[in-house]
């Protein structure tokens, strides 16, 4: 493991659409302060926003975690459920279980996880129905 520069943990509440995006904005600010290049910041912002919104929309609450190391940025989420029954389906573009209410707000295109995967150099997801979901993404600097 390379040298850790910082770790920030953001609590994300289920259903809190007003605060949604605040943790991602904070992550963007931190990376800017660390003079990370703007293309990598853009990728990190896409990853953190989609992960944060999935916590708000689909989870029962969880954490968004930023870790910055000398050679990489790691953005991860951990939530307390309800988990994903079929991960390969969830990763498919266009697959979404979002309700009509959520869709009317502009969510539910089924693009969030594919966006996360596309913008990460490494992407890991662990989940099972009835337990929580964990996502770990890495961007190399």
């Amino acid at each position, binding site marked *: 493991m390379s040298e850790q520069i910082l770790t920030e943990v953001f609590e994300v509440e289920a259903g809190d659409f007003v605060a949604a995006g605040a943790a991602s*904005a904070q992550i963007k600010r931190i990376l800017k302060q660390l003079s990370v290049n703007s293309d990598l910041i853009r990728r990190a912002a896409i990853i953190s926003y989609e992960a944060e919104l999935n916590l708000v929309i689909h989870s029962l609450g969880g954490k968004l975690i930023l870790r910055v190391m000398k050679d990489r940025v790691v953005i991860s989420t951990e939530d307390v459920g309800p988990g994903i029954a079929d991960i390969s389906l969830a990763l498919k573009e266009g697959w979404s279980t979002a309700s009509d209410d959520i869709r009317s707000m502009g969510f539910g295109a089924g693009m969030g996880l594919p966006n996360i995967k596309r913008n990460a150099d490494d992407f890991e997801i662990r989940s099972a129905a009835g337990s929580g979901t964990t996502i770990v993404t890495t961007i190399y600097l």
Partner: protein
Amino acid sequence: MTVEELALAVGGEILTAPENAGRTIGSAMTCDLLSWVMARGKADMAWVTVQTNINVVAVAALHDMACVVIPEGMRPDAPVTEKAAEEGVVLIRTDASAYSVCCTLHTGGVA
């Protein structure tokens, strides 16, 4: 084309962050699916959307967009304009259609 010029050309009203209305628009997009816009958004973009909820501000701010244009006579609520003002995101509202706003952007030289 600047944000201010766009607002004028579409008969629009700048609702928030007039201090940023001098920005030059680099590109444009119209779409109401947030994760679609998250995937394709860029700095200096003008984004035309009928979504008026607070998440629009988050997406525009994360991409450092030039402005968000809300067409078709839609109006964002106060908490949304407050958030946009706080984040320095320019919101423009207009009675013009999304299509017509896009035509104006094109005529204004935005590729």
